[in-house]
């Protein structure tokens, strides 16, 4: 990706993949080679995809978001046939009588950052350098667009079985619940086309520059270097900082009663710091890391982006692949500013995850 006109080519795929993982560290690499091979082949065959800033598009341009809904493990075990994302878009086009002029990721993170590139190549339309989350949140209405008043519906979830679900709901929360009810039947994952809107609406509703950002982060991660150097380089791009380094001493499941509204069990990881203050860090997990406590004190939490770096390998440690004894760095990266607003905090902050504590930023008197 370079120059005034920005393009995503096959050569960018490895960096996109790695950077996307940084912004959704929950999901491991099962199926990585298949998906990256698919996207690389598409970009070699169809040519590079144009990446446009939202403000460069005509305001009336119809746009639609794409993501993978559901589990990365399900996707790995039942890879896409390849037509699911375009099929989902076509159904909304048919319903609304429009032709979308651009696609954008619902979440510029995990494989959900890659599939809009694939769909853009298949459809021959540009990709917008913007998304709705700036990371991955678990529910489809946890987006900047929704905060800006843009509806996620009508939406279509097209599954690997060839079945699809069309949802039109009064609220985002109801749309999400209706979708989840059918997700298992669709195969555990689905291509989700949602938030059909215009480029003009996205100028005020989407988070800009997030595809470029993951590509830049990915290039740093691909250098596979010493963790200390890696973190300092990541910090220059993302503003991340290390909360601590230690060995995992415990992985707890079902550490609290399950909350049906979040699509994962609450669980915890305990890390004993190996240097510095020798604190015990407790990491609270849902689908992503939602809070970090040090000796019982909350030191970071949603909507911060929290991730683990494998300190022995200098690579991201994904949450489905942790073992006791692993040496990890705990990183915190500020989320996009919108998430620290009162509305954002109410939507995706600690309280939403069942942790009734003020965010450390608020305690420090920061906005």
């Amino acid at each position: 990706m370079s120059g005034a006109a920005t393009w995503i080519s096959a050569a960018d795929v490895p960096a996109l993949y790695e950077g996307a993982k940084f912004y959704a560290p929950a999901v491991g690499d099962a199926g990585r080679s298949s998906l990256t091979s698919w996207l690389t082949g598409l970009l070699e065959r169809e040519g590079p995809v144009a990446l446009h800033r939202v403000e460069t598009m005509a305001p009336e341009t119809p746009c639609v978001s794409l993501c993978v809904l559901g589990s990365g493990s399900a996707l790995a075990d039942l890879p896409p046939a390849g037509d699911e994302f375009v099929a989902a878009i076509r159904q909304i086009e048919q319903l609304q009588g429009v032709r979308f002029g651009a696609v954008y990721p619902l979440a510029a993170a995990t494989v959900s950052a890659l599939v809009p590139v694939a769909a853009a190549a298949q459809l021959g339309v540009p990709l917008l350098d913007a998304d709705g989350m700036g990371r991955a949140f678990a529910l489809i209405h946890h987006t900047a667009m929704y905060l800006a008043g843009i509806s996620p519906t009508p939406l279509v979830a097209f599954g690997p079985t060839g079945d699809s679900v069309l949802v039109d709901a009064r609220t985002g929360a109801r749309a999400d619940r209706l979708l989840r009810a059918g997700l298992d039947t669709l195969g555990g994952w689905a291509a989700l086309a949602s938030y059909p809107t215009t480029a003009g609406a996205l100028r005020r509703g989407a988070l800009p520059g997030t595809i470029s950002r993951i590509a830049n982060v990915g290039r740093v991660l691909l250098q596979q270097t010493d963790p200390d150097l890696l973190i300092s380089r990541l910090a220059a791009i993302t503003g991340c900082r290390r909360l601590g380094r230690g060995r995992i001493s415990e992985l707890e499941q079902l550490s609290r009663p399950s909350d049906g509204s979040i699509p994962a069990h609450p669980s915890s990881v305990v890390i004993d710091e190996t240097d510095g203050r020798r604190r015990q860090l407790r990491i609270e997990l849902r689908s992503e890391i939602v809070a970090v406590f040090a000796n019982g004190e909350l030191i970071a939490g949603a909507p911060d982006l929290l991730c683990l770096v494998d300190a022995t390998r200098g690579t991201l440690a994904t949450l489905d692949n942790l073992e006791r004894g692993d040496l990890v760095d705990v990183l915190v990266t500020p989320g996009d500013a919108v998430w620290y607003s009162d509305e954002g905090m109410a939507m995706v902050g600690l309280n939403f995850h069942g942790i009734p504590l003020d965010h450390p930023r608020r305690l420090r008197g920061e906005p």
Partner: protein
Amino acid sequence: MSRTGEFAHVGVSLHPERSYAVVVHGAAVLPVEPARADLDGTIASAVRTAIGEFPDGPFAVTVDLAPMLLDAITRADSALPRVAVIRVVPRPATDPALARSPAALVERRVARRFTVAGGHDLLGNELCPLDHGRLEEICAELAAGSIRHVAIVAAGSQARPGHERGVADAIQTAMPGARISAASEYGGHGLVAREATVVLDCALSGVAEQLVDRCERVLSRLPGEFQLRVARGDGGYTTASRIRTMPVVAFGATDALEVCGAAYLEGLADCRVLLSRDGAQVAGEVRHGLAQVSLAESAGIGTELVVPTAVLTPERDVTPTGVPGRMPDVPVVRARHAPELLACVGAAVSSPTSWLDEVAFIESADELRSVRRDAEERATAFVTANGAAPGTAFFAEVSTVAVPYSPAGTVRIRVRVAGTPDIGLSRPLLEAP
């Protein structure tokens, strides 16, 4: 760490151009210099060395087949059989890249690909009935052709193998002599990784069998009592008979053996090991005498497999003292011997191991405990079948993590078990792991 106790253990690393061996007896490590460095000469020379130096038998001979298996796959003029692949998924891929393996080395072994409608989700719920009509067509086509090696992978077969077994039964009926590999025999995650595993399994079956047969013939001609073991990708070992049925388990063993061999020579059970690879430095980790392993892409293959192999990562940072500083709490070992010798030592001191990686659905802490206990019991049974003395199995790793973005209650369970070598002892080992 596996201890050799009071018996001599032979470690052998088979390479296409020559083979290597050492004899290990406690702290004593004797490299073998055979007059003939082929498989037969090396094993015979190593065993004679063991008998000469340590006359009290019995002896164990652990062989690393991995370099030979990798050579068989990568060699341009490879005589490996071509494989027919049958994927059981709800719909066929619409893009050529999604229809094939992303690994060229794997795809080179594939003569024909078929898709049969069917499959289950991760938790074993049927997504699509098995298309018996299409299956009959495929059976007829294969029976009329020359391909006799068939790899089968069905979506969700690790949770519910019914469709996969249905396909395997139909193929076996149509082609009674066919060599069939089914992904459910290996478990694991990811259709592409599971498919690559069974393609290699199928393709390598002949060469693995020939190598094991040769090793057994050599040992049968030698005086004394010997047990043949074969190194696994995770640095442990299994029996020759299991490698005959699941040859891909031996794939990629060398890295783990080198890491464990270097640690053993330093007398360390927990350390970071620095090795040289093509002029660069890589690092592996040893915990409790076992190499740290993962299901990452195996070097030189280009795709993930579902048999774990050692994790080696580039290591470029060196402190002014010459010691990498990223892991201050464990010793760092810089390998000081040839990689072939390290691999032989690692093989000689290896333990029987097993690995289990599954997804389960649980609704309570009690159910979680029950599911874990069941997984642990099965992994323990596997390690005993792989050569562990009954009652000696210990859990090197048990992890249960929620599967992100899945319905509440979906967990991934991984169990890694090791045991004390069972070499038909009439006396107990001096040291337990």
